């Protein structure tokens, strides 16, 4: 399969699309994704690639078409003539710290949230996060919902988030919207998801364990 493929495409016609990736000139076939083009062109050090189907958020690229600069995911973006592509370095470690196991009570969540994410209420509505999101999430609105304490709705807004953190990079106030969204989803499940069918089965299993222990004690 592989050999015949090579001869068919390499020998048949010359690649039709010329672009640059990480500063190197690459000739690619139409229809190739930017990841494929990088591999095809032998661009070294392209290791921030994961799932190749747009759900892992690794292959972050900065794109320049003429004067317009945008960001996106390389496995979901296709080659174009003269586009300049730069694979972005991995995001730095998050600046906001919390361990969900430390939260004992949901009543002080609003205070906790603003202590963990003090920047979230300082959004200047520049729409940078909205424009950066490769999934079309209404990021700015999601942050506003979280800042107002509406975590369930905020989390729902971020449902399709793949944690590429491009919105974090775009935010001039360093809000880290992707992490605000994930925080909102996590506290919603942590404090409010109490499914009766699961709780019932867990209790059954606990009773069974107690009985087994008692039986074993009796045997002794």
């Amino acid at each position, binding site marked *: 399969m592989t050999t015949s493929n090579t001869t068919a495409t390499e020998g048949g016609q010359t690649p039709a699309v010329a672009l640059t990736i990480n500063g190197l000139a690459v000739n690619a076939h139409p229809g190739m994704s930017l990841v494929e083009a990088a*591999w095809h062109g032998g661009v070294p050090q392209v290791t921030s690639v994961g799932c190749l189907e747009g759900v892992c958020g690794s292959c972050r690229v900065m794109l320049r078409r003429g004067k317009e600069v945008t960001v996106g995911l390389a496995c979901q973006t296709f080659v174009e003539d003269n586009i300049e592509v730069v694979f972005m370095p991995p995001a730095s470690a998050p600046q906001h710290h919390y361990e*969900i196991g430390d939260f004992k009570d949901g009543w002080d969540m609003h205070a906790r949230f603003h202590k963990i994410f003090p920047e979230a209420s300082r959004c200047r509505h520049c729409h940078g996060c909205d424009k950066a999101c490769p999934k079309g999430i209404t990021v700015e609105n999601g942050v506003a919902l979280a800042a107002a304490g509406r975590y369930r709705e905020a989390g729902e807004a971020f449902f399709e988030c793949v944690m590429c953190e491009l919105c974090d990079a775009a935010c001039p106030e360093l809000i880290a919207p992707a992490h605000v969204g994930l925080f909102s989803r996590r506290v919603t499940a942590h404090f409010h998801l109490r499914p009766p069918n699961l709780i019932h089965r867990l209790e059954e299993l606990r009773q069974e364990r107690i009985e087994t222990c008692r039986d074993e004690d009796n045997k002794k």
Partner: protein
Amino acid sequence: MSNGIPLTEALARYRIDADLGPLPELTDIDALLNTYHPDHLRDSVVKLEVGANAGDNCQRELAGLLQAEAFIDEADLAGTPVTDIDVLVIGGGGAGCAAALAAAENGARVLLATKLRLGDSNTVMAEGGIQAAIEPDDSIQRHIQDTLSGGHHLGDPALVSALAGDGPEVLRWLIHQGMQFDQTPSGDLHTRRAGGMSTPRLVHCRDYTGLEMMRVLREAVIQHRSIEVWEQSPAVELLSNELGQKCVGAVLTSLLDGQLRIVRTRSVILATGGLGRLHLNGFPTSNHLGATGDGLVLAYRIGARLCELDSFQYHPTGLAHPSHLAGKLVTEGARAAGALLVNGLGRRFIDELQPRDVVCAAILRECSEGRGIRTDDQHVGVWLDTPRLERANPGILEQQFTSLMTRTHVAGIDPRREPLLVHPTLHYQNGGAVIDTNGATTVPGLYAVGEVAGGIHGRNRLMGNALLEIISFGRRAGVAATADRDRGPKKVTLEHVNHLRRALTLAGLPMTQRAPQVLPAYAAGGIWNR
């Protein structure tokens, strides 16, 4: 492979309301499997000659890697920086994160090293859901029975019973970490029934269960005080004691600067996942870029016993077109909902709801006998008749297969109007390292969890048991590895590598190939052509 009907011709001939003809009778399933299933291809299986599984069957390309030369020897370790840690977890998918969190919860200082970015894994792509027996008419026992019979009764009953028994507790732990699941209007967890289940047992978060799980666990790991994460840091070798019989650490490299680093530890947990990116038997794969079987190679070289090395799951419906999505899955749910498989002559050829291995073999038969559909770049496949499905159930693709629609939309294909070209794709490694119910391998100090471990799924895995396995056994291994108190390494060596070199020389095997592979050749600066 070169024969078949050209794509444009087949598309022009396609009619949404065409008569598909009668379904041919499936007379001899064994003959079909033996002739066409990739596990049975002639020359695809060899006998291993050295190591703990000498004499056992093994897929040919995998055998080459298991019996290969190491990348490093003792001279490379001189002057290499050393890190000491309680528990080392290798792999940053769901299993690795669950193991790291469990070890940290139990008081260990943990280092999690991952080849790519934390969370780059097959976990993130899992769409279906996670199995747990929580419905009133279901039971742990039924879950055990379904899993064992799904695996053709070759799974280890002790492991399967541990897996099924953990199900409800795993869900509670995931919710505690902040993972959401779909609920019924009354607040119960919503369950679905999928292939091989005798009752609804699949808990899910729409068709993004793996993504939801992975982003939550990834955040929990990053935020945990006792867990350090090294990204872009693949393991190239494990370390052993003076006798080469105990695992006491690992040697990591960096994809960014190539620097080696030694990690000395009480316990190593391998959570390196599968091997789809080895493209066994020339097949495309649904797996993520890092799935190159590194963990199997490292475990085998230090002496761990493996199992079912000739059994792989090929998912029947991987995309064959467009080429950038080659091998990526169309979920089994599409066939469950009624989508039919049609060959290049416009005929049905198999009952679409037969087990995965049978459907896979039937598609390969159509392709090899010239009834497949061929693209310009020599991919071959058969139609998955999505327009007909849409016509019978208007709106179904948008509502139930969002992820599929999003992916094909990017490529300018509308599955509501044109059928999808599909071909079997390498999906899952059924076997792996032999483990006990703590995830411990046969080598002291070495644990294996998730896809790299074997013994649970026999020779066929059921949907939803992989996501359960990574959390259940990830946590078991994390706890057990922390309890291993007295394994402070005195001396770290590569004695096990020397053992294997001697064995390879005695067996007269060539030592030209090196392993683990770390990245597929086409991604390591090579030529892309899959």
